[in-house]
């Protein structure tokens, strides 16, 4: 069972948080800080799963961005690890092809919901390029970079693989 999804940068700033079970607003900030600390403390060669309170954390690092998923003990860690990557691929597709509007926060949340609430019905090639829409800034919301060319999602994904 997936409990929450966090996107945090190396400075510990939350870029996106989505909780699939109720956590009080006041407790979120400290939870997020603890989670980031737990993940940042780990070295590259250590495994991507950390025990954290009642949860297991599965994290994946993309350049300066950490994506952390909190799951329960009985979940399959490796499948979540791959789900995170799938999520990133979907974001990349989505944000590189759709014009950026105020709808993007909602869109991001929709993806979170879709992927992490029902992982088994994931479709990958969902986003078709719409005619007449230019590829624009993909990752600003994530705080990844201001313009795609500088530090866009697409760019750094290629860089890390």
């Amino acid at each position: 069972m997936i409990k929450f999804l966090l996107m945090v940068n190396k400075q510990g700033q939350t870029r996106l948080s989505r909780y699939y079970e109720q956590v009080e607003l006041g407790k979120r900030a400290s939870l997020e800080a603890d989670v980031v600390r737990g993940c940042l403390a780990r070295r590259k060669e250590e495994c991507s799963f950390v025990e954290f309170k009642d949860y297991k954390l599965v994290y994946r690092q993309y350049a300066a961005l950490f994506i952390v998923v909190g799951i329960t003990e009985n979940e399959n860690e490796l499948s979540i690890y791959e789900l995170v990557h799938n999520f990133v691929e979907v974001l990349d597709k989505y944000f590189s092809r759709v014009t950026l509007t105020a709808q993007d926060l909602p869109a991001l949340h929709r993806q979170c919901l879709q992927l992490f609430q029902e992982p088994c019905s994931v479709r990958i090639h969902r986003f078709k390029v719409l005619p007449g829409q230019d590829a624009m800034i993909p990752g600003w919301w994530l705080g990844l970079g201001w313009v795609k060319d500088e530090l866009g999602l697409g760019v750094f994904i290629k860089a890390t693989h």
Partner: protein
Amino acid sequence: MSDVVEKTLTALPGLFESQTGAAKITNRLRQLIKSITELTSKHEEENLIKRELSAIKEQVSSPNTTMKQMREIMVRAMYCEMLGYDASFTYIHAIKLAQQGGVLEKRVGYLAVSLFLNEGHELLLLLVNTVLKDLQSTNLIEVCMALTVVAQVFPKDMIPAVLPLVEDKLSHPKEIIRRKAVLALYKFYLIAPNQVQHIHAKFCKALSDKDPGVMASSLHIYLQLIRESPDSYKDLTGSFVTILKQVLGGKLPVDFNYHSVPAPWLQIQLLRILSLLGKEDQSTSELMYEVLDESLRRAEMNHNITYAILYECVKAVYTIHPKAELLEKAARCIGNFVLSPKINLKYLGLKALTYVVQHDAKLALQHQMTIIECLDHSDFTIKRETLELLFRITNAQNVTVIVEKMLDFLRSCNDEHTIIHLIGKVAELAEKFAPDNSWFIQTMNDVFSIGGDLLQQDVPNNFLRLLAEGSESKEEDDQLRLYAVESYLTVLKGHTSHLPQCFLQVMSWVLGEYAHLQESVDRREVIRLLTQLLDQRSVSSETRVWILSALTKIPEGQTDLILDLAESLSSSQDTVLRQQAQELRHLSQDSQLREWVLPRGAPWDGIEVDSSLSFLDGFVSEALAAGAAPYKPPHQRQEELCEDRALNLEPYSFSLPVSLSSCSITDRQSPTLLSVSSGLSGNSAELSQKAGSSTLILEGVKRVWGKDGYLPQKEATAPPVDEPSAAVQPASQQEAAERIEPRPEPSTQNQDKQQLASSLFVGLGVGSSVSLLGKSEAPPPRFRKKPRPHESSSSSGTSKRSSDSSSHSSRNTTDSFLYGSFPEEEPATSISTFDHTPKSTTANGLSQNKDTKEDRHANTSQILGGDMVIVRPSTIQDKHPPSVSSDLTALLPADLKDLPHSDVISLTSDPSLSLSSCRLFRDEALLLVIFISNCTETVIKDVAVQLTCEELKTASLRGNVMDCLEARSTSVCHYALLMDDPHTNVSLTGTVSYQTQPGHTNTLPFSGTLSTADFIRPLVVTTEEYGKLWLSLSHDVKQNLKLLTDAGDPLRTTLNALKDALQLHVVDIIGSEGIVACRLLSGAPCLLHCRVNGAALAMWLRSPHPALPDFILYHCQRALAHH
């Protein structure tokens, strides 16, 4: 189809908005995010967000703000709240946006609602009408949005209002709508399972939907359903297998592929379902062997996701009925994982191994080198997982080494959660496998000093109970106690300031109780050591109380010391301490009184505690007569204090807006929220009337419930049941409460050890006490297990084994300690002649009776005796029919004969033994009696029954281990089962191991299901007591049930039917209302209030336990449906 909708959704922004508007809107948010990213300190961020929030506040309250602007504001508010700043003032605007906006605004509004509000939030009620409207909309996008929000947050009480609409959507032509409807129903099932019971058939339709997306969504529900009751869904096994085959065969659209692996997460979900279905069920397992094999074969690609699938597959192979060929392949997979250089795979391998060793301990043996390496791995997570694995393979032989490893790890660990978790396991292992007294006490000392005050309270409790209850032999117990006393005296003589409070408490209790066993030590010394503690500043006042209790118990003769102490404490600031000092003084002066209050060596179960405090009745009624306020339980007081909760959260039928406003007014006026709200919700149609009269019922306690429901006629004079008065409580009360903790069932340490050892490695000779294991520094051969006295065959194998394991131990002596007792090294036991797992005996038996099996394998499970479903893992030979007859009940022990009991049902049988069971309903527990009949003409030896159930507390009362069972005779063993938290159904599994000839151990697995109904007991209360109790309970559930109308008085008939089915106690029936009470064993009560409402029975349940009403309701529904 779905693509069309999705495309429309994605294209919306472009269609509806001019490019410039979009840019402007985004700019504000972009600006915000940009400035936050550039900030360097948390403080700056705080200031920035505060400024932003006040700007937002200004904008939302301005009447000129358009919906479009509001949408943009809402996104910014979401961002602020996501960063952890409270933006609750925008909640109501989010709802407004969802209610009034156009499609785009609605979308943002709904999203904001689902992010901002949680299930219980009162503002959600305002959303219900909008959702209802949107569900009926002809605009697909609106329907979609409404379903999405319903699947995320929806008030539980309002589910009936939307349920029919959501149900309709299951047959909608668009797949995306059907998919979302399934997810909404899944959500409903999670929060209120009894509401969606009637639509199970529709889930089946969703499973066979032509769109794979809809099918995949329905798997969520099925996984949940099957987890709860696998037996009801066995017939679907074929469908799941076919689906998995199709997925593996690449029949799904390529959309579902991830790195060219077809629908990996769907595969994982299906494998989970299959493993639940095939668990302990051979015929079902046989259906899936082929597809599992294919799954193992397909997943050979070198990619993480295929490993994730493999892991799930391996788990499934080991969960279902074993098949040698598959086990072999799965074991190879685990080997690949464990040996992989990739650290994530290694982790997964360890996790798989941890799971698998429960079924096949040999596998750990193969990877012992890797395990040892992992134990010293630099990665904390890997280390942690390895310890978990070791915990699973611990037995009496390797316990010292494993516990030492765990303690080493704990000493260097500073994560609270890990410590709490692991230290509990250490304590568990120590209790189960302790080789000798000194080791046990020493280990527990470590547990207490490392775990300290983080320890779960049950660790010290269990430890003290173990000391207090003792085993069969008094001599051994006294030795253990003596050792504890000695060890604690040594500890106390050293530095004590750093010791955790809980350790001090344990020590003072033990010294108080058992210091007299140690004759060589001067009592004055003990008293001095304890008094010393009292002077320490770091000692908490709770611990002081423990110490004083101990001093009270240390016997006569030292009056001068005690009096000095009492004198010095009598001026203490702490009233409790002062009181205890006073008691101490009195008792030490009056030895007769002491003898009476604190009898030495009194039996543990002989102490009776009057938990209702009835001896205070006189005092309370005097106080009441003198004008004292009646007692209110803490939570009631708190609710009265809490003025924020002004909204009534009871469901209203349909006049929502009206009732909301009226009830919020009344509640604010009333000082007792509880009584008014119960009055209100009793009958929502008459709300307005009641609002007027609410000022009359200021003394809320007297008014018991609804308008025409029960109202107590007399002024209550009897004191409330749970009157607490620590100050008035007599001195011995606390003492007595401590003593009553140990439960009467005598479960002895020795029995525990034997039982566990035999269950861990069935058929292996495990000496019950191997005192040689004391020190790990000793040379390896000394750690060899002693041959079991009556197992002659194994003695010849000892020498072989020692040579075997010395070869293992060449690398590291630890190996041989850890693996000293695995099957491989045990020659001449039955287990090695069969396959690797205990279950193989059954498999073997089956192949012999194949012809008889053919006839009956179609249905090996049968429903028997009410809710009890017994699965027969093995078939029955015709010449040995199950001897199920009521005359077995004649074998029940005399003291149990008079208890109400169920029919005797056959559990399982094989050519030698047949097992039957019977449930006996005792007030405080469910007794499960197992009859073991020897069907052969020879004596069967070493019969041991092992019963496990995760959800229940089980305690073996007697007869679970027998040296021999005569030919054609039957033996009885029974278990007490306790249910602390209700579950709809709980499954029991167990095994009987026995020897037909020496050295040849057979095992016979059995399993069964129990329902909550077995644990419900009538609660006999009077109408007045009922009324009081009703008010003090907090969790309630309401539902309309079927009314049985076939006889004269429908209410009476229905209640009687429920009473017969569920052992409820019908307290009273007044007119069209009835009140009924029951409890979960001797635990949480549940009160039911029933009212005839037209053709239905409106049932209102209350209980202190949040989940209990749901379960009772569920069983009531079932009982009525079956009637």
